[in-house]
């Protein structure tokens, strides 16, 4: 880690030019204390300057983006790992400072227990959860523990597009919001402290509540002092029962074991995780979700997404703010910390974190695209220390094609699973078009082949002596029962390029959670209706549903 040895070959790498940083150096910031660590390529810091640097970075991140409004309910998605634990620590730090510089939002914690698909037993899960709950309770924020099995309980209206509330979050409003908040704070200081009404009651109903209007208002959050730390809502106390039954555990295990490749499993897991976070945020009344993704993790994610075909949504997947859901925004405040800095911070300041095994723990390097990319980036980083930061900076220069979901001028189709803008318009000269042609050319001209429907006329049937391909032969069409393949085709047509690849690796679509399948049905019916009246429609409408069907 520390650059202790001299590099005397003539390689034009940074090593040759960096000062040999040894621990006996002085801190580069205060020039006073001796350095305890080196980050980047030669920046030596002492302990206190490092802490200042770390804390400042977090606040600067929130401050310059001006997206977190005062009094806003923000959900911290904590996995227990190093980065999210550091994030929790920063939030606690930020909220505990003296008044003028205090961070001004109301956090809650959510943790998703994915033990079911990682092959953990109930006892192991309980043990981990006990440890996690201890950490959450000591933070004093309300926390919610959600289980992956609960994905089967999500309501059917889960994936419908929602418009973001009108009072959101343009730069001009930020200043007014802050001023207004400070004003109200001064007022309440003179009043009797009331029981806060802001935190929504624990409501475990399945219907999605219409909290848009509430979310648009600014709440006054009562965070003076630690005495209001009674909100330890749990959905499974460690001594109580689990909020799911064994059939659901079996169902989720079956779903994941029906997926052939680890890559597709990881993608599906991420999607379901996002949906669960979204649902929790909606019913508990949060407007933002903070995720703990470090710079290194985001660089890996970026390259992985390129390899998966998600180039169109790179900016959304790795940018600071992710607005694809409309009402809930995902922010990533840890995105400028490299994993090295986080590891140092956690070590030096004893930040508690817990390791939970994930889907790809102990998998070999080539088990999935995610694992491969991670090992590739780490290896490259050791040879070329600027790799991660270069990739990160490149990602900052990207944007999404249609980043404003509010403009009603065009109906923007969104993928069913990942809710990003669709990128499967078959343009004439594109990789996607080429893929479809290849599929078609390698198979018999069969009327119920899936993707043939998307390429219109088979005009390129060669007439140079190759035999005629018109007839369906029994051997291949037997594999495709008509209703099954139709449903698969319909579902695939509603997915973006990379989600299609994920679903293609699934053996059977029936194992998907109900809300996905019913949303697919709903969209199909709507598209059929639209087709019937297409000729009478004048302006393209905004595809936003504010009522549940």
């Amino acid at each position, binding site marked *: 880690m520390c650059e202790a040895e001299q590099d005397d070959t003539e390689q034009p790498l940074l090593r040759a030019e960096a000062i040999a940083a040894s621990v006996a150096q002085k801190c580069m910031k205060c020039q006073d204390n001796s350095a305890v660590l080196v980050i980047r390529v030669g920046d030596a810091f002492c302990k206190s300057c490092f802490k200042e640097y770390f804390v400042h970075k977090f606040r600067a991140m929130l401050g310059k983006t001006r997206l977190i409004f005062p009094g806003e309910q923000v959900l911290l998605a904590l996995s227990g790992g190093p980065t999210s634990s550091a994030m929790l620590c920063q939030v606690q730090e930020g909220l505990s400072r003296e008044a003028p510089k205090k961070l001004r939002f109301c956090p809650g914690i959510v943790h998703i227990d994915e033990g079911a698909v990682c092959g953990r037993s109930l006892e192991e899960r309980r043990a981990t959860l006990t440890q996690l709950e201890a950490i959450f309770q000591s933070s004093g924020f309300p926390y919610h523990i959600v289980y992956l099995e609960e994905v089967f309980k999500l309501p059917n209206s889960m994936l419908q597009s929602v418009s973001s509330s009108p009072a959101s979050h343009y730069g001009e409003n930020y200043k007014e919001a802050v001023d207004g908040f400070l004003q109200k704070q001064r007022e309440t200081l003179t009043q009797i402290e009331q029981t806060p009404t802001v935190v929504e009651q624990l409501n475990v109903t399945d219907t999605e509540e219409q909290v848009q209007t509430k979310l648009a208002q600014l709440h006054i959050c009562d965070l003076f002092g630690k005495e209001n730390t009674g909100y330890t809502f749990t959905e499974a106390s460690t001594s109580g029962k689990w909020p799911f039954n064994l059939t659901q555990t079996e169902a989720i295990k079956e779903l994941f074991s029906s997926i052939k490749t680890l890559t597709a499993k990881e993608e599906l897991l991420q999607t379901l995780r996002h949906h669960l976070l979204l649902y929790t945020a909606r019913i508990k009344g949060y407007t933002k979700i903070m995720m703990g993704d470090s710079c290194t993790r985001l660089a890996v994610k970026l390259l992985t997404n*390129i390899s998966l075909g998600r180039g169109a949504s790179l900016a959304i997947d790795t940018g600071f703010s992710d607005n694809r859901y409309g009402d809930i925004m995902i922010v990533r405040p840890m995105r400028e910390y490299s994993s090295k800095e986080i590891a140092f911070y956690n070590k030096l300041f004893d930040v508690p974190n817990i390791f939970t095994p994930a889907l790809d723990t102990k998998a070999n390097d080539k088990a999935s695209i995610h694992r491969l990319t991670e090992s590739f980036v780490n290896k490259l980083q050791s040879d070329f220390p600027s790799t991660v930061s*270069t990739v990160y*900076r490149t990602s900052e*220069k990207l944007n999404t094609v249609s980043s404003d979901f509010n403009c009603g001028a065009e109906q923007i189709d969104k993928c069913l699973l990942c809710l990003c803008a669709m990128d499967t318009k078959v343009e004439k*000269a594109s990789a996607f078009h080429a893929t479809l042609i*290849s599929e078609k050319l390698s198979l018999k001209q069969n009327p119920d*082949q899936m993707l043939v429907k998307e390429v219109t006329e088979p005009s390129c049937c060669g007439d*140079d002596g190759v035999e005629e391909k018109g007839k369906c032969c029994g051997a*291949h069409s037997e594999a495709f029962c008509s209703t099954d393949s139709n449903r698969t085709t319909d579902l695939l047509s509603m997915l973006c390029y990379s989600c299609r690849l994920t679903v*293609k690796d699934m053996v059977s679509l029936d194992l998907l959670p109900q809300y996905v399948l019913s949303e697919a049905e709903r969209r199909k019916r709507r598209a059929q209706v639209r087709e019937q009246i297409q000729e009478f429609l004048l302006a393209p409408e905004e595809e936003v549903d504010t009522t549940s069907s």
Partner: protein
Amino acid sequence: MLGGGRGSSQIGSIMPVPCSSCDKKPAVLRRPKTGHSLCKECFFWAFEEEVHQTIISAELFQKGETVGIGASGGKDSTVLAHVLKVLNERYNYGLNLMLLSVDEGISGYRDDSLETVKRNQQQYDLPLKIVSYEELYGWTMDQIVKKVGLKNNCTFCGVFRRQALDRGAMMLNVDKVCTGHNADDVAETVLMNFLRGDIARLRRCTSIITGSEGAIPRCKPLKYAYEKEIVLYAYFKKLDYFSTECVYSPNAYRGYARAFLKDLESIRTSAIMDVIHSGENLSVKEDVKMPTQGTCTRCGYISSQQLCKACALLEGLNRGLPKLGIGKQYKLHNRLLKKDPLTEEQQKKLGAVTF
């Protein structure tokens, strides 16, 4: 199990599997791109048809054009020449095809592959023109590597070759140049540009036709053909080509991207097309600074700086400061143009590598 294939394919099975396209002949190969099992003729047809579709949908050629095929004697350019010739006749493109080859002066590599190109010329009966670095620049790659070392030599070769192709194309008076870049190359380039943070190139590298006002357009008809399929095609068609890695390439940065891509392909065969798809759908923010296009003040070639890269590199070589063109030494270009002497320290930094 590989993702993406729908046909019944068995790996290494002894029992004959029928071709999934014609269903009559037994399959002799499995397509790397889709996993389907095909017989020889169906594979040829599918491969050629895909190139044809690429050409038609991107409108690469017009009737009556003269097209120069960049021929190195390697598998990509040999297959390209063959397929273009076949398609030109089959679909009446009406093109006038020519072979154009570049001699970088790498002994043991390029002279052998040039022999292959000469054989190709006879086999396909196409006119051939060879341009060499020696006659264009006065330096061969062997001489350059002696000065520069093994790390940055690909930069020299690539830049010089691009110009050499253009000069040769002008000499032959062609309307378009096509190169044998395949899907793997394009995917590697996307990954490499991402890793290097080269936003400007990221936007351009997935275009199937590149080139701007005044320059001869350059296209990649094999853009969506997998490298493995090109090899399969050449093998079954018994095409003659020269198949060795360039001796100077092992330390190139591109090697990392290539190794990564190969691993990706082994996990998921469609990964190569997925990377290209991602590259095509990238969108860059409008306010990102992009290099503006101008011309080189010395040779008039298109350049985004005052001196085009080739002139900068050449200047460095001729002055005994080979690293002049490598890295971010743009400020020195002005001094070069004014013929100011460089300071001692700058000279040392840019100096030749000593082995």
